[in-house]
């Protein structure tokens, strides 16, 4: 403890005191705020880049012509540029609303706002001195500051006012709210509000990323903590609040230890021993020993298929991938034959690897995913799944025979359960439904004859 009694005003620190304080970290930002900050920063960057390119009239535009052309060709068309701008804006608005709805008790309470954005007399004095010091016209000490300094507060006030304005005017333009006259004014107000924020944003970015004195503040937006020395020097009033709180907790703890009948008992969460960290619900589900219900697996598979179509432009498949592995092996030994064969040449042109295909990597990924899933659930071991009455050898023979039939049939049908039934079914291919009916019909019949091997 570097201080016996907390100073009312910042005092000169001894070297040891400074050393101790530089080592201690104080928590400044909740992780939710850090995430929101960087999400917001990314959105602003992208929205400014696209928004600047959207204003094309010679009357209003400020970005040079080459910039407009560059962004237009990057997005394919100006309509895509506009769509991107609108979709991102809606996502941004939604995220802020979700934060507002779930976190209004934490972020939007009057006393919190007062503390974080309300400017007091010290703050106004700070602004004047800060400006003079930056210009090199003054050596006066800066007045003590709360958790945010006056510059940050001023910027926050502007943000708090401008963000709703930008959201409302943006939605007005995007969804034609309130009629044409409102849209006309919305464009102008949108532009003006963004312009004001940008001029503040430049200072914000400069202070955070370039200005040497504020470097710990920048890193606090990544780690969530600042060292105590920085807090003492730059946010003295906040530092004092934190210290007072710590003192109270310490006294309460000491009273507890000495068995004194504590006069006012401190809040329970401060004295209760920390409980061991509970794994999150997601982690518990992942580590469950039982198999998940098939309905969840089915929905998951459907979503995976959707994602595959979205990302790769094609569906899932298995037999096609295996065919490519075969072609790769075959072309190692008999490239001439492979290229000449009517069937194999579908997958092989000399000079192009048959393995450069999504399905090839998808199969590797499926194997890795299965391994991870088994490992997470503690199911990983070498075993042969078989019925109780048959030997391992029978199982191997049957599996190989079944595999050969399945492989042959799948290529004959131009797809397996994944490629034809799933992916084909997803695009409503008639062949997929015929295949699926045939698979189930044959499966029911076959299962009857093969039941003794499993029961």
């Amino acid at each position, binding site marked *: 403890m570097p201080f016996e009694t907390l100073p009312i005003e910042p005092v000169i620190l001894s070297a040891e005191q*400074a050393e101790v304080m*530089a080592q201690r970290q104080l928590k400044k930002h909740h992780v939710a705020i850090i995430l929101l900050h960087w999400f917001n920063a990314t959105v602003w960057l992208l929205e400014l880049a696209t928004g600047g390119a*959207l*204003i*094309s*009239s*010679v*009357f*209003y535009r*400020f970005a040079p012509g080459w910039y407009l052309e560059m962004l237009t060709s990057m997005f394919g*068309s*100006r*309509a895509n540029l*506009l*769509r991107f701008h609108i979709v991102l804006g809606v996502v941004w608005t939604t995220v802020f609303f979700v934060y507002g709805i779930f976190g209004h008790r934490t972020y939007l309470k009057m006393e919190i706002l007062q503390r974080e954005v309300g400017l007091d007399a010290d703050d106004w004095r700070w602004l004047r001195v800060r400006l003079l010091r*930056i*210009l*090199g016209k003054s050596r006066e000490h800066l007045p003590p500051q709360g958790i945010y300094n006056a510059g940050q507060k001023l910027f926050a006030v502007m943000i708090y006012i401008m963000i709703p304005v930008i959201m409302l005017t943006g939605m007005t*333009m*995007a969804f*034609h709210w309130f009629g*044409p*006259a409102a*849209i*006309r*004014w919305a*464009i*102008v107000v949108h*532009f*003006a509000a963004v*312009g*004001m924020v*940008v*001029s*503040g944003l*430049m*200072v914000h970015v*400069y202070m955070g990323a*370039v*200005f*040497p*004195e504020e470097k*710990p503040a920048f890193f606090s937006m990544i780690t969530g903590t600042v060292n105590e*020395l*920085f807090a003492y*020097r730059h946010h003295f009033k906040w530092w004092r609040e934190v210290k007072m709180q710590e003192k109270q907790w310490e006294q309460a703890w000491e009273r507890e230890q000495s068995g004194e009948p504590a006069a006012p008992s401190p809040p329970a969460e401060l004295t209760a021993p920390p409980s061991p960290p509970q794994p999150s619900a997601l982690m518990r589900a992942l580590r469950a020993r039982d198999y998940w219900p098939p309905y969840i697996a089915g929905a998951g598979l459907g979503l995976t298929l959707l994602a595959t179509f979205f990302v790769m432009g094609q569906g899932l498949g298995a037999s096609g991938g295996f065919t490519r592995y075969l072609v790769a092996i075959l072309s190692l030994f008999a490239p001439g034959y492979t290229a000449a064969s009517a069937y194999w040449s579908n997958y092989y042109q000399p000079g192009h690897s048959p393995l450069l295909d999504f399905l090839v990597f998808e199969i590797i990924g499926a194997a890795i995913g299965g391994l991870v899933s088994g490992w997470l659930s503690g199911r990983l071991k070498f075993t042969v799944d078989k019925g109780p009455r048959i030997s391992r050898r029978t199982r191997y023979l049957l599996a190989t025979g079944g595999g050969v039939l399945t492989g042959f049939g799948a290529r004959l049908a131009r797809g397996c359960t994944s490629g034809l039934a799933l992916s084909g079914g997803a695009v409503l291919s008639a062949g997929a439904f015929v295949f699926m009916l045939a698979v189930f019909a044959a499966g029911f019949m076959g299962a009857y004859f093969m039941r003794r091997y499993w029961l």
Partner: protein
Amino acid sequence: MARYAMVIDLQKCVGCQACTVACNSEWEVPVGYARTHVHYAGPAGVIPHLVAGPYVAQCNHCSHPTCVRACPTGATYQTDQGSVVVNRDLCIGCGFCVEACPYGARFLDPVRNKVDKCDFCAARVEKGLQPACVITCTAHAKFFGDLEDASSSVSQMVYEKGARRNETPAVHIGPNVYYLGRKANVDLALASFAPRPPRLAAPGRFWRDAVKPLVLAAIGATFLGQAIAFFNQLVKGEGQFDD
């Protein structure tokens, strides 16, 4: 390059509105709105020297369009063939162009919430068809073609028969719809439906003359301030702040 133009022979026009109907059904224009209208000018003069007749109004596809400059997003633009068209995907329905057009050729489509106007039937012309109003015209009074092609009917009518544009000394932005007919009739029609001066709506003026300069000035001043601060920082060096 080409220069699409239309010639309307007011002497042949019988004012039947077939062009309006054809256009509305071809482009699904909402009821109560139209991309092309037939108006009636007159009667004027003294009995027995009365003048009266129809006048067909539509987008003039001006060579120097005022609507293109007023459009903030670039939804309204001039094609290589000189026609002025609207990209609905980009239009946000602000109506700056409606105010800017001296001919009243534009309207805000209340169904799509976007601006709409004649586009010289761009989709039909691309397929090699004539505009819907031209093939429908019962009196064969409308002609469409390339003004730069000397053999086209429009260029002959414009350069040899003296078809005239609807222009005034105050508003001459190069309209590409031309009118033929008896001089007295054309005089009356053009005088009755003369273009009004183009307007930039109040928010547009405010944006162009006040907001844009102020925003640029604010950003410039901030930049300058930071440049000074950064220069000071470089001069002083970082050693001083070691906390």
